[in-house]
């Protein structure tokens, strides 16, 4: 039988759990996930591992122009409990040849930098939608050979754009197809 004293005891136990920001993140995510799906670029789609957990999902980008056209690139996105004080963790799980994405999947996008000195890094006014558009633009407008993460790819581009194109296509053929 459930007695009032038992109920009170249980309530007190629940309150001693250390404060976490997870409930704040989850509240923000309800709005942001909806906004993201409504404003998704036409070349992108989103896949949730678990429908009840909006904090972990895969962004699939299929560029319709540029060097990576025809490839299918998957990004694992993890919105940690400290969101939106910190940016989501992003890893590219598709191997590709790109000056701003390493072969291990680390992504170099100013928006995703936790600490910034130039004011271009993460800011809590950013939303998931900005992250999605940023990743999407890495294949077009934000592609940057000047400040590369994959130095080898940027160097190759500098010496021969044709060779760069060939390597990109090789990677797309080997790793970025369905």
């Amino acid at each position, binding site marked *: 039988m459930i007695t009032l004293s038992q109920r009170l005891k249980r309530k007190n136990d629940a309150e001693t759990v250390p404060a976490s920001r997870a409930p704040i993140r989850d*509240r923000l995510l309800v709005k942001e996930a909806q906004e993201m799906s409504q404003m998704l670029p036409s070349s992108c789609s989103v896949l949730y591992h678990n429908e009840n957990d909006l904090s972990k999902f895969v962004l699939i980008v299929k560029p319709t122009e540029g060097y990576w056209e025809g490839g299918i690139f998957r990004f694992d996105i993890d919105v940690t409990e400290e969101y939106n004080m910190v940016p989501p963790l992003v890893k590219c799980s598709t191997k590709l040849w790109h000056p701003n994405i390493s072969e291990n999947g680390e992504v170099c996008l100013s928006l995703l930098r936790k600490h910034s000195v130039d004011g271009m890094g993460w800011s809590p006014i950013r939303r998931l939608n900005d992250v999605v558009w940023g990743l999407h633009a890495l294949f077009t407008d934000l592609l940057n050979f000047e400040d590369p993460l994959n130095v080898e790819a940027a160097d190759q581009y500098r010496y021969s754009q044709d060779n760069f194109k060939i390597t990109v296509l090789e990677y797309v053929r080997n790793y970025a197809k369905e």
Partner: protein
Amino acid sequence: MADENENEKMDNENQKPEKMFTLKKWNAVAMWSWDVECDTCAICRVQVMDACLRCQAESKKDSYGKQDCVVVWGECNHSFHYCCMSLWVKQNNRCPLCQQEWSIQRMGK
């Protein structure tokens, strides 16, 4: 001089009956808005005059009712919840909206 004044008085008295209309009823309408640069906290996306997302969540949990969640204005005139902003400045002492160095201009409701 006295004559002139008298004439003016006469004129005024003569004009009185010629009034075309009189004001019988006047309904005044006033508009108002918050006197702040931005009325939504850009960090938690809740109105600055309401409690921030965290305070709302916590007050729900311990059912205390009213929470003391104040607003803070920076020198740049941008406003946020004090709770939200104090978390952010620990990481980066800039206004999230304009990236200016953050310094508090005033606090309150």
